Structures are given as C-alpha cells and as structure tokens.
C-alpha cells in the first residue's frame, strides 16, 4: 500500500513535469512508443521486465520504499525548480512573445477572391498553438489505419470498418479543423461580421483548405500500399468520400458550434463538450453512418467492386450538391449571427 501511494505521488510530479516541459513530454512519449514498438515489431516482450520492476511494490521491503522515496524527492525537486523559474510575472510574460515569421503567401494569389482568406487561414494554422494541435491530430489520424489494416483487431476486419478507417486516415484534419469553423475566428468575429465579406467566399476558402488537407493526408498514407492494394483502396475511397461529401458536411456541422476558441491555449483541443449538440450529432449520420452502410451492405450482398462504385457515385453526386449545401450553411450563419457573436464575446 505504502509503496503504491508513493508511486502515485511520483506519477503526480511526473505529470506536472510533462505538462510544463516539452522535452520531458517528448522523452516520455518516445520511451512509451519505443517500448511498444519493441514489443510489436521485434517480438521482445517487455512485460517480464516491468514485472520485475513493479512486483516488489507489493512487499514492504524497506529498500524498495527507500528507492521510491528517493525517486519522489528527485521529481519533487525538479518540479520545484521548474516552478520557481516561472514564478516571476515578467519572466512569464516575456516568453509569451512569439517569434515573428515572415511568410510568403503569394502562391495563393491564383485563388483570386479567396486569396486573402486562404492567406489568413494559413497564418491562423501555422501561428497558433490550438490550430497546430488540429494539424497534429490530423497527422496522427493518418496512422489510425494501422489498427484496421494490419488485422491487429479482429472485429475491425469487416469491409465497413475498413472503409471507416479510410475515411479517418484521410479526414483527420478535416474533422479536427472543420468542426470548429467558424469558431477559429471567434476572437475577431465582430470584425468579420462588419466587413465587406461574402459568406460564400469565407466558406469556400475553408472548404479548399480542407480539400487540400485531405489530399495531403492521402499522399502521406501511401505507405499503406505496403499492406497491399486492398488497404490503399480503402484509403482512396475514404479520400473520395471526404472530398465529395464530408468536407462540407463538416462545415455544416461547425456552423452550429458556438465555442469560443482561445487560439493561444491548447485546452480542450481534443473534444469539447459544447461542440456536441443534437444538430452536430444529426450530421454525423451522413458523415459516417451513411457511407458505412452503403459500403458495408453492397459489399456484403454484391461485391467490393460494386461497393466502391457506389461510394464514388455518391461522392460525385455530393460534389454537384455543393452549391445548395453552401447556401444552406449561409442561412445558418445568418440566422445564428447574433447568438454566435454573443457566445464568442463571453
């Protein structure tokens, strides 16, 4: 008992260190990933070793307790010095200033009336903590398919689940970024609302951004070809469905989300309760349930070829419906304008 309590205490301090220091976080993460990959790829079982380390905890061996106490004291001193270095207000403020980076966005000029918005969005993504985490989430999702395509989890081997993976592999950024449009711009929403901005241009620029991200994710996911053409086929199908339908479905859902986003902080970056309401839940149906049903059923009753064709057909149909859907989103924006402004203000 005593040793478990002390170990908990140690974990607590370790947690504080991880939260405050990127280096500690990176070390911990790579240690964890390293051990995991040892186990997976080289068949080295690490559990006997960890057993050796943790088993004595259950005994009351004074040597073990002594070692643990030493470990806690070491962590405590580290945390203490770290906090002390951040004690002074001016030191805390100093490091808030971010280094300025000059970006050349002239290559975006070809987008004509959308160029100013795209430039702003790129700056938004690259210069703010919170939006960077959306990019990282999108990147991590590219590897999500490993769980599905390697046969690591048995119940994921049905065609519908494989296609599900395809959607997430290519659409990670789309989900993590798109669901918070227009909340990303919450800090200066009054400006956008009083400027000469057409909603359609605003939406279009976000839509292009999501499209580009889907394509980049698909390119990054080419390594799934190692696992066979079948796996990559699901990735490509996921891309097509995301491009054709999900990219604006996500924006549609975002229009109902009125969460003020603090760009400078990482809090609530993954998952936010107020982002879930019945309207956004309802839109999950066409985003995930519908394609899975279409693919799953036609693959089950007919063939994978037909299922693929069905998905492609639906996506092309979705593409042609972009305009009416955008008009619908525009209506939502207009209708919700005052409540959105109010929500962003508080």
């Amino acid at each position, binding site marked *: 008992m005593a040793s478990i309590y002390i170990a908990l205490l140690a974990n607590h301090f370790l947690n504080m260190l991880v939260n405050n220091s990127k280096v500690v976080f990176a070390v911990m993460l790579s240690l964890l990933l390293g051990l995991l990959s040892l186990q997976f790829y080289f068949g080295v079982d690490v559990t006997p070793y960890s057993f050796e380390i943790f088993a004595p905890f259950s005994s009351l061996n004074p040597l073990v307790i002594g070692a643990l106490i030493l470990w806690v004291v070491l962590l405590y001193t580290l945390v203490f010095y770290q906090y002390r270095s951040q004690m002074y207000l001016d030191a805390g403020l100093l490091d808030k200033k971010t280094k*300025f980076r000059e970006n050349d966005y002239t290559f975006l000029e070809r987008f004509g009336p959308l160029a100013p918005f795209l*430039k*702003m969005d790129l*700056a938004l993504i690259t210069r*703010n903590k919170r939006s960077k985490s959306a990019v990282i989430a999108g990147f991590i999702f590219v590897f999500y398919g490993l769980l599905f395509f390697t046969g690591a989890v048995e119940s994921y081997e049905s065609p519908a689940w494989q296609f599900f993976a395809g959607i997430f592999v290519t659409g990670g950024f789309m989900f993590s970024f798109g669901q918070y449009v227009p909340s990303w711009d919450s800090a200066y929403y*009054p400006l956008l609302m*009083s400027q*000469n*901005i057409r909603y359609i241009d605003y939406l279009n620029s976000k839509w292009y951004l999501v499209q580009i991200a889907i394509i980049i994710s698909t390119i990054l996911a080419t390594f799934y070809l190692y696992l066979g053409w079948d796996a990559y086929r699901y990735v490509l199908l996921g891309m097509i469905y995301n491009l054709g339908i999900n990219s604006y479905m996500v924006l549609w859902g975002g229009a109902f989300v009125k969460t003020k986003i603090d760009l*400078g902080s990482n809090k609530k970056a993954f998952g936010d309760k107020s982002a879930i309401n019945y309207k956004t839940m309802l839109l999950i149906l066409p985003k995930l349930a519908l394609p899975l049903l279409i693919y799953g059923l036609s693959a089950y009753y007919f063939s994978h070829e037909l299922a693929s064709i069905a998905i492609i057909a639906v996506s092309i149909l979705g593409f042609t419906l972009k305009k009416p859907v955008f008009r619908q989103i525009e209506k939502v924006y207009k209708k919700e304008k005052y409540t959105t402004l109010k929500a962003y203000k508080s």
Partner: protein
Amino acid sequence: MIEVSNVVKSYKKEVVLEIEQLHIGRGEVLGLVGNNGAGKTTLFSLLLDLIKANQGHITNKEIRVDQSEEWKSHTAAFLDESFLIGYLSPEEYFTFIGSLRGLNKQQVLDFVGGFEDFFNGEVLNKKKYIRDFSKGNMKKIGIVAAFIGEPEIVILDEPFANLDPSTQIRLKTLIQHYTEKHNGCLLISSHDLHHITDVCNRIVLLDKGKVVKDNLKSELTLVDLKKYFENEIVK
C-alpha cells in the same frame, strides 16, 4: 446618411437604449458623450448590426442594416480588440482589410505609410504580431485600418482612450484632415470632453440610454458639457 428610428434595446426588460429619432447627415463629425452605461457602445453595435434591436430599425444610406449587407462596403469601424486579428503582423492585417475594400497590397502600404507620423515609428516594419503590441499601439492599428479604402462612414469607439498625449493630438489632426477631405460622416464616442469638443461639429449626450442633449458645437460648448456632468455629481 444614418437614420435611427424608434430603436429600443433591452436586456432582460432593462432598457439600455431608447432613441426615438436620430439623423446623422453628410459632413457631420458626431461626438457621442455620456457616462459608462449610457449606451454609446450599444448604439455603435446596433449601427453595425452586431446586436439586434428589440424595436425599431436603423438605416444606413437608406439600407436597413439588419436586412441587407450592402452598407458594409461603405462603412468601417473600430470598436475594440475584437476588430483586430492578433496573429497577423500590422502590414498583413492592413492588406487583408484593404483586399476586402478592393485595394491591392501596394495601395494599402502606400496608404498606411502616410500614417507613419501617427504611428510614431512604433508600428510598421516591426516584425511583430499584433497580439504582441501594447494596447496603445493596437488601438493605433485599429484606427488606421478603419480608414483604409476611405469609407464614407467611420465609427470609432473611445479612440482617445489608451493613447499617449502626443498621439491624442495627432489623432485629432488626423480626424480633422479626414473630414476636410471627405464628405462622409464620422462617429466618435469619448469620455474626454476636451477632445470631443475639439474635433466634433455635433455633440449628442446620452444618459441611461436616452438622448439628453443634441446640439451643434456652436450651441453647446465645453463649459455647458462640464456643467452638465458637474450637476450629475451634485444630484
């Protein structure tokens, strides 16, 4: 140019603004004065359609602000920091605003270059994001951005607050120059009676959401205004 008719704005039955009729014409530099909670910012937010009136409506060049968006092309405002984009540099921000008003980058840079004096060398080419500037410099950035593209109607909430004395004087010159050159209208709110009487040609005094005085400057002097607020204290 601007017509406010029978506008009532209330929060939970508490009326914060009630204006029967207010007409603002071309060439006017209208100063809005009043204590905190008098309804100055509420009026500006209504003019920009950022909040919805409970009754009545506002037209901007015969366009109802809550029904059409056409007025946005000839109107600009700087109310607070929510009109700035923190992660952009001032130049990027100006260019963005300019592009919304049909100006290219060079035109925008030429235009803001003319304000170097107002910026006092503290804003342009600093290689800094707006969020890292001081409050005073943020205000300068917002004010200048409101003038980009020379819109007919410019609305500034408390432009003198947070500025150092020299910049306040420069701002007065800036406003005077602008009104000499343009036949639009300018709406300014302020707590500073001196500044308001210096630059405005019409003064509207709000108290608890109602227009108490509305006079041309020639009729309402600084002395009168001071007297009014002194009486308020006595009461």
